[in-house]
C-alpha cells in the first residue's frame, strides 16, 4: 500500500517485478508484486518521485564472512 497524490499512477520496478496501479481518491494505491529474484524494488509515484525502496533478499545465504 502506497500513500500518494489522488488519481496518479504508481509503479513498482526491480527484482523481477513490474507493476502499476492508480491511486484512489484518498491517494492510496495497492500494488501486488511477486519478486522473481533478489534486488531492490523502487516504487515511484506522481512526478516520477521515489516513494519507497524495498529490498528483496533470500532467506538463506552463505555465511562465509563469519569467522565461525
Amino acid at each position: 500500500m502506497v500513500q500518494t497524490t489522488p488519481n496518479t499512477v504508481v509503479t513498482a520496478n526491480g527484482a523481477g517485478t513490474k507493476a502499476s496501479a492508480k491511486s484512489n481518491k484518498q491517494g492510496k494505491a495497492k500494488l501486488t508484486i511477486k519478486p522473481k529474484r533478489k534486488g531492490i524494488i523502487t516504487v515511484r509515484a506522481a512526478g516520477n518521485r521515489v516513494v519507497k525502496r524495498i529490498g528483496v533478499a533470500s532467506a538463506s545465504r552463505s555465511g562465509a564472512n563469519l569467522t565461525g
Partner: protein
Amino acid sequence: MAVDPDRTDRFRALSTLLAVMGLVGLIAALTPVAPASAKSANEYPKAGVILQTKVAAHSRPSSSSPTIRFIPQFRSDFRPTTLLVLGEAKGAKGSRWLKLSMPVRPNGTIGWVKASAVQMRPVQRSIVIDLSSRKLRVLEQGKTRFATRVAVGRKGVETPTGTFYITAKFKPTERFLGAFAFETSAYSKLSEWPGGGVVGLHGTSMPWLLGQAVSHGCVRMSNAAALVLKRLAPAGTPIKIVA
C-alpha cells in the same frame, strides 16, 4: 425514624475511603513529574533503518566534522541496513543528531547521523554473552527470557567484549554454521578473513564443543537454541559481551 447502626458505619467507612483516595490523588497531582528529557534518555537504545539511499556518518554531531563512512540503505545482500541508535544530541542550528554504534573496525566505533535520515523503533530484548561462564542470555525488561550454553573464541582469537548488535539474520548454506546464523556488528581479531571477519552467533554441527573456548571469535550454540534466538532477536537487537 429509626437509623440502622450498621448502615451508618458502612457510610462512614465509605466516606473515609473516598477522602483517602481524594488525598492520594491530590498528592499525586502535586508531586513534580520527571522532566521529558530524562524520559527520552531512558528510551535508548533503539533500532533504526535508513530512509535515504545512503547517509553520511560523522565523527561528531556536525556536518562539518569528518565523515567516518557512508551507510547505504541496503546491504550487498539486499537486506536493509539496520542501525543501533545509542542516544541523541542537538547539533548546530538545533538540528537533531543520532549517536550510532557503527558496524566497522575498530570495534566500538561511534558515528553520528542526522535524525531526519533514520526511522527508529524500540528494541524489546537484549542479548548478554558472558565469556567466562560461556552463557548467552536473552533479557526482556530486565528478566532472563532465554539462556543457553555457548562456545566462544579460543585463546588468541577471543570473542571481543563490548556493546554490539545484530545486523542480519539468515539460514546459512554452510552445514558448519548450523540451523541458523546471526551477523553482528562486532569484528574478530582475524582481520584477513574473507568478508572482513565478522563475529557471528550461530548454531553448530559440533554440539560436543559447546561450553568451550574453541571458535575463531564467533559464538556457537546448539541448533535448537539458534532457532529460539531466531524468534526472539530481530535485527537491531543489542548484544553486550562481557569477559
